[in-house]
């Protein structure tokens, strides 16, 4: 990854020691940063174990934007088609319904029971949903997540 900031990393491991996911998983932020300088790591599943909690970025003594770097590495992986099936499904919800977590019949009826009508979101307004679809197509997102 072309990121001169990352070259200032002196491998102290504060990022790894602060990582709530790394406590349980193979995610080793220090190693990701080190490896990203010299090789393509877009096929590493660990990249997707980060909850983006920003502990590493907050605590980095070099002030490296570590979490932002992980986001950039993920974007590189996505460009190469490395998308987890569950994430692809969420993307499809966004494209079809304008929401990552769309409403369902159960929750429409729960809303009615507590005196709430249909949410005033994009789902209720067809023209607005069309605008969202136009945007997602314009930025190339539809193509990006195609199988």
């Amino acid at each position, binding site marked *: 990854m072309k990121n001169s900031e990352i070259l200032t990393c002196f491998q102290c491991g504060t990022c790894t020691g602060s990582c*709530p*996911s790394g*406590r*349980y998983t193979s995610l080793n932020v220090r190693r990701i940063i080190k490896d990203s300088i010299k090789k393509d790591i877009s096929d590493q599943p660990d990249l*997707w*174990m*980060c*909850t*983006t*909690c*920003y*502990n590493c*970025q*907050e605590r980095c003594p070099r002030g490296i934007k570590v*979490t932002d770097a992980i*986001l950039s590495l*993920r*974007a590189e992986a*996505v460009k190469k088609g490395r*998308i*987890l*099936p*569950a*994430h692809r*499904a*969420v*993307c499809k919800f*966004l494209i079809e319904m*304008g*929401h*990552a*977590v*769309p*409403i*369902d019949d159960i*929750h429409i009826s*729960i*809303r009615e029971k*507590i*005196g*709430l009508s249909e*949410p*005033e*979101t*994009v789902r*209720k*307004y067809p023209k*607005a*949903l069309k*605008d*969202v679809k*136009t*945007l*997602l197509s*314009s*930025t*190339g*997102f539809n193509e*990006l*997540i195609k199988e």
Partner: protein
Amino acid sequence: MKELSLFLGCVIPNRYPGIEKATRLVLDRLGIKWSELKEASCCPAPGIFRSFDKITWLALASRNLVLGEEKNTDLLTICNGCFSSLMDANNILKKDIVLRNEVNAHLKKIHKEFRGTIEVRHIIEFLYKDIGTEMLDRLVEKPLELKVAVHYGCHLLKPTKDRKLGGAECPLFFDELVEATGAESVPYEGKTSCCGAGGGVRSAMLETSLMMTEYKLLRMKKAGIDCIVEACPFCHLQYDGGQVELAKAGKIFNIPVVHYSQLLGLAFGYTPEEVGLHLNVIRNLEFESKIAQIQKKGITIK
């Protein structure tokens, strides 16, 4: 200050509408001028969409921001994820003219333009800064004698240089808001640690996300609490739904999960049902009878 448009996001209206109802009730009780942000989409969720493609994330977020600009209102979020996406996108597009031009070229296709004229607020920092704990304390009708584990959630606080709400290691403002309701914020180990849901981890790696949730729940339980109070529906979902998923593996916690809007609603005298507590998956009868006892007391002289 501008009037506020309530930005609902996805999880609150579509999974935990009780939080939406509680928010409406407390905003009205506080006499805040607000209206719905109609036609809004997903913020879009920072975990997946920001990771996938920055321009798509900015374009969709900017459309939501422009809906607020067209009404000349600030956006009020009740979710840390929405706050994070919308605030970060707003800041980036206000500062970076190259990115703004690129995003506006996409927005032009739907006859919109980002101008950078509004701010993005989160209900917690809004109540703390613009209403204040003293005013809340005066409005409380039913002081809630509860022991509470406060969970800030990562994106309310971090990145600290963008949030400008102080440090992330030992924040206090949310605890002060909780204590304004009469509850006691109980210290516990790992308080500022992540619930485990974010970054697309819950959706793609449920077991991994639950390990982080269990870490938190164990420490909250040890502190001896009546409930968890958070300010983000995704943390809410992770703690509430996560306890059901953990129970399948024999790990029983049964800790009620309460969004701050709901807690404030209870302190204002609304019933648990009015603030949608019964819509949680985790029901704790002991907690419910404790709330009923508090509510029965009538207006309590503090």
